[in-house]
């Protein structure tokens, strides 16, 4: 577990160095994720230790959101001021994104099947 955790941290560190060094607009951990993904492609998959450590970490992904989520306490004022815009934005955007994504995929899937 320690070796796998170190590996994740090393990829994050490299990602952070690249993001800040090249002044990229992408967060460092995302570049770390991309580099690890490419490494897995080259090496034909993760070692069992990395597989199980990642699984454990991602299984409790919800826990990791709690400190940031509790930050809502600092924004109660803003939310009270803009609650209608926030609520409608989230609601409309969620429905539209679900529908548009699914319909676009359905369209291309039908076209692909018809072409075969």
């Amino acid at each position, binding site marked *: 577990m320690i070796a796998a*955790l170190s590996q994740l941290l090393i*990829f*994050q560190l490299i*990602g952070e160095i690249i993001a800040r060094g090249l002044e990229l*607009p*992408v*967060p*460092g*951990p*995302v570049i*770390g*994720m*991309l580099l*690890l*993904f490419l490494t*897995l*492609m080259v090496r034909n998959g*993760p070692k069992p230790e*990395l*597989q199980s*450590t*990642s*699984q454990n*970490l*991602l299984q409790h*992904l*919800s826990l*990791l*959101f*709690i*400190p*940031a*989520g*509790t*930050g*809502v*306490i600092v924004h109660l004022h*803003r*939310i009270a001021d*803009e609650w209608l815009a*926030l609520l409608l934005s*989230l*609601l*409309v*955007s*969620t429905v*539209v*994104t*679900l*529908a*548009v*994504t*699914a*319909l*676009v*995929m*359905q369209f*291309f*899937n039908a076209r*692909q099947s018809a072409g075969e």
Partner: protein
Amino acid sequence: MAPRINDLWVYLSASPLLGLTLTLIAYQAACWIHRRAKFSPLANPVLIAVSALVALLTVTGTSYQTYFDGAQFVHFLLGPATVALAVPLYTQFRRVRALLVPVVAGLLVGSFTAVASAVLVARFFGASLATQLSLAPKSVTTPIAMGVAERIGGIPSLTAVLVITTGILGAVIGRYLFDALRIRDAAIRGFATGITAHGIGTARAFQESEQAGAFAALAMGMNGLITALLLPVLVPLLQ
């Protein structure tokens, strides 16, 4: 006795121990409630734990900064967890070849729709620029969304709240919407849920079927990556 309790509170409120312990307890209690509610998407563990902690901080008059001094140890793990997303991304990647064209089309159109619709509706109803920018990455998994929000001038902690709310909405609405639109393919239902509602949607999709869950996990990872890459370029166009 009273002064001693007072001393104890002075110690505890200044130490990171309390914030960290309370976060872990709140999470476990919320998971217990989630199980008791038969994994209903409405009993979302993050929603429950955050509500409990907000109530507790308000009642005890504790500042968020004091709480976060302890909770930051949990928060820090979002970085390695983001890197770890590469593993399920790799595992799912090989299943995609057969559906490559619909997947790429769904990803590009869905990712753009998620950002543009949120920002435009918020602007139409008069939200401030900081709020609009905090809304932009709301369909992406929290660790990535917070990083992106910081980069484009949004408020990361507000984004975290909006991301979690979006996830709950998407998980609740998805099934009824797809049935109404007569979309039956599990891969498409899962992928659209993952694009819109990231990890919370993915958890929901796994309850529907294994295939829906796998495609939702793939969509979550790909959308996180593409939004992180494209949003900073897209933001000047939306302003």
